[in-house]
């Protein structure tokens, strides 16, 4: 099972992503291989989330190209995405939410290395006690931990994380940093946007705010 993660490679060349007709991300390139991590850095509005959402397949690329090698499934079916919205139904319990996503996201299924049962995943994020509790009653940090537990119930080699440590306490952050180290050690790949340090060692960095993009685009748009 392990060798399937070994040959992973993601390369992006001069990506261009637009939202509402405006270029938010232009000319972004990077290379990433198995076991490596990419930290997307930049101030608010620099396009970190937009870039990650496009990589996850929610937004179309308007230019450049992205090549993902590793299995015959496209990147969006080999990747996990944890964004600002948790993807949890507040009426269902934490366990029911995880069981649902395990069955939906695990459908690609041949890659099973490191897959945990929903109960084990909750134990891993330290929420074993609240598994049968409706998610609506959980605190923001606990909800985030349930969302992160989704990373473990379906084994996918690429993790796309948009501010994953939001609302996490110090202990949970350390536990999550440890989980990311294990994921990379087993050949996985991590792309994360963050302001806070995540504990990703020797990660590649991608800075998006070389210039004031939004303002620059606005002024050219005004000139047209």
């Amino acid at each position: 099972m392990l060798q399937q993660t070994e040959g992973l490679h993601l390369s992006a060349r001069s990506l261009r992503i637009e939202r509402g007709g405006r270029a938010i991300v232009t000319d972004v390139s990077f290379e990433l291989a198995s076991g490596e991590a990419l930290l997307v850095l930049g101030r608010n509005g620099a396009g970190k989330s937009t870039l990650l959402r496009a990589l996850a397949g929610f937004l179309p690329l308007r230019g450049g190209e992205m090549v993902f090698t590793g299995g015959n499934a496209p990147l969006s079916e080999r990747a996990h995405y944890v964004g600002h919205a948790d993807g949890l139904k507040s009426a269902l319990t934490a366990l029911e939410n995880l069981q649902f996503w395990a069955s939906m996201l695990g459908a690609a299924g041949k890659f099973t290395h490191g897959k945990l049962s929903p109960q084990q995943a909750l134990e891993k994020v330290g929420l074993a006690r609240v598994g049968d509790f409706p998610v609506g009653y959980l605190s923001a940090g606990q909800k985030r931990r349930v969302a992160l537990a989704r990373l473990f119930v379906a084994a996918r080699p690429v993790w796309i994380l948009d501010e994953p440590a939001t609302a996490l306490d110090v202990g949970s952050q350390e536990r999550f940093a440890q989980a990311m180290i294990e994921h990379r050690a087993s050949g996985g790949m991590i792309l994360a946007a963050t302001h806070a340090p995540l504990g990703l060692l020797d990660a590649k960095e991608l800075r998006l705010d070389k210039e004031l993009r939004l303002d620059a685009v606005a002024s050219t748009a005004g000139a047209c």
Partner: protein
Amino acid sequence: MSSPLLSLFRREARIARSIGGGGAMGVVFFLILVSLTPFAIGPDLNLLSRIGPAILWIAALLATLLGLDRLFQADADDGSLDLFMMTSTPLELVVLVKCAAHWTLTALPLVAAAPLLGLMLGLEPEAQAGVAASLLAGTPALTLLGAIGAALTAGMRRGGLLMAVLILPLTTPVLIFGVSTAAAASGGTVPFHTPFLILCALSLATIAGAPFAAAAALRAREG
């Protein structure tokens, strides 16, 4: 049916049954609408039994659309919709299963309640059966047409009203053939199966086409 779709169906059912899920609201709304109409029209039983099928159909149309605005809105708000796009299950099938769950939980109770409410409107037994049969054949079309509107308005605040405005005109053929099926059941010049088969055809056509339209609208939500 593969297990991801089965678990999606179960999840939808569980959410609809939970508090605030709105599963039972459709049939209660239907009940209130149908019982209000005689107060507005007056105690003329002949008139009521003549327009009864039409009253039941309009009430069913509104009750079906009532719950549909949340079909994708809730998933768009909490990020589930993004995750559906990352599954290996086609989004079209996700749409179809969500519609099937919604139809089972909101439209099927309407079909069951329609004969009882028909009694209140003084319908003949044949007409009651006709209304129930026409609703059973026609409501899938309403749900799936509504799903297109729900998908188009998924990213918007207060999209429910816009959805109704977009979709209600499209439901005209379903309404016409639904009421004429019900009317043909209790006599008349047209044989029952003629409008009934057209109604079935409308439902089948929307089952085949609407998931693609709704999935395309959901994919184009951003960007």
